[in-house]
């Protein structure tokens, strides 16, 4: 038998999905995942999603970009000195424009790269695509319990059934 990816329940509205996620969390189910046709406000907090890797990466990328731009301009001006209008070689106001551009570039590139890596993109397939009834083009909202070390399949099934979903679907890896 194929390995289990998740046990998934289908709901007809985002409100029911939020309610179900709240109840499962309160029962101690911590490895939850949701699949919805549009972003549902508050769902990330209910699923315990606290990852701010993208924000952190953008902060680091922006800082590195700005510093690199400054050092690059200072290095070029010291290596090839051009005296213009009596201004100092390290002309900080003039450097700021390039620093700003590189700050934005560094922040955006590192943010996008981190987002891709965190989402494991590009990815051409996902186990839920093969699951019965899985269709986000219809108004369907799915909540999945992912198995962990001491996973009890029956207990998970009962917990999902208690939420009275439209269907309970087994998703194979």
């Amino acid at each position, binding site marked *: 038998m194929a390995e289990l990816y998740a046990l998934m329940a289908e709901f007809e509205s985002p409100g029911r999905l939020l309610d179900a996620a709240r109840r499962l969390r309160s029962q101690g189910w911590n490895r939850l995942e949701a699949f919805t046709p549009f972003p549902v406000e508050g769902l990330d907090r209910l699923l315990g999603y606290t990852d701010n890797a993208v924000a952190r990466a953008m*902060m680091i990328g922006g800082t590195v970009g700005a510093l690199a731009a400054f050092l690059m301009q200072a290095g070029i001006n010291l290596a090839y000195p051009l005296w213009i*209008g009596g201004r100092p070689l390290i002309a900080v*106001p003039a450097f*700021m424009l390039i620093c700003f551009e590189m700050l934005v570039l560094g922040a955006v590139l590192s943010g996008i790269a981190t987002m891709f890596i965190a989402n494991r993109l590009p990815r051409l397939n996902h186990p839920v695509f093969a699951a019965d009834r899985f269709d986000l083009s219809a108004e369907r909202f799915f909540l999945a319990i992912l198995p962990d070390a001491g996973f009890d399949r029956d207990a998970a099934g009962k917990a999902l059934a208690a939420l009275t979903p439209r269907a309970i679907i087994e998703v194979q890896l």
Partner: protein
Amino acid sequence: MGIRLSRADLWTLAIAALCAAAALALTWFDPGAALTGWLGAATAFAGLPAGSLCLLAMMKLIPGAWGEALRLTCEAGTMLALPAFITFLPVMAGTAFIYPWMSHRPDTAFQIFWLGPFAFALRTVLWFALLWGAARSIRARRRSRAIAVAALIALPVLGSLVAVDWLMSLDLKFASSAFGLQMLILSLCLAYCALLMFRIAIGSRPYRIGVLGALLLTLLLIWAYIQFLTFFISWSPGLPEGAEWYGRRAGGWDLAEWAFALLGAIPLIMLLFAAIRADAVWLLRLSVLVIAGKLIEFAWFALPGRGVIAVVSFLLASLAFSLLASAALGLALRRRIARRAPK
């Protein structure tokens, strides 16, 4: 309306009147310097109703959590237009002492028409009439969307005219098309921080306070951009008038430059952190820093070259207007609440 002055309000207003009287008494020693100091403080004070109207008009067109949290406070802020106008009466009466164009013979017919105490007073009156009239319609919820659109178009245009009149014309040679925008963003930052401080200090904790912190960050970013670029445009090609204007702010005033740059930059960097943006106590502290920075900045625009009396007059008048603003904002807010409460 049944809104009465409390004992604390009366004391605040009495001290404010004393400080204002002391600032005006300095005209006995040096009318030009004392009135220029007063002008700097009055321009900052006039930024409160102007900034409040700008925020109120944007709230009307861009509704959201920030509008729900700040609308009544902003409406109260726009009611400061009347006291702000009164603080400009000494300026209008004393143009001969303050402005160099009063003692210079005009070069062109346009200068005769444009630069004179009457034309100056007329533009000042029109500006406060715009602030009062537009805010009144928005407060009364009468055709408020159309008025908000018109006000947002008129604010930078007419604001540029009075900014040129009030502060830029202190220097006969200097001309900058971004001067009005500089004044507008200064006023907006000052007004927003004053209203935010007032809102956090007196009311319940605002709903989704992180949005309010993010807006402060946005305003500070716009401020940094406009202030830096204006300097850069003068610095890069080495425009002589610009260099002279900034050069006059060397000497003791470069300390003021450091002060307002840091008082803007430190809050800006701290607000990059979401935890600080969503913390009411931190927003209160940062608002105090920003307000201090903006007052120094207004002084930096108005006072250089005018001597110690101008600085003392500015400090006294700023203290007077701050006290006046705190009492008047409280009063205006109680009035707005009484007006909007269900009958």
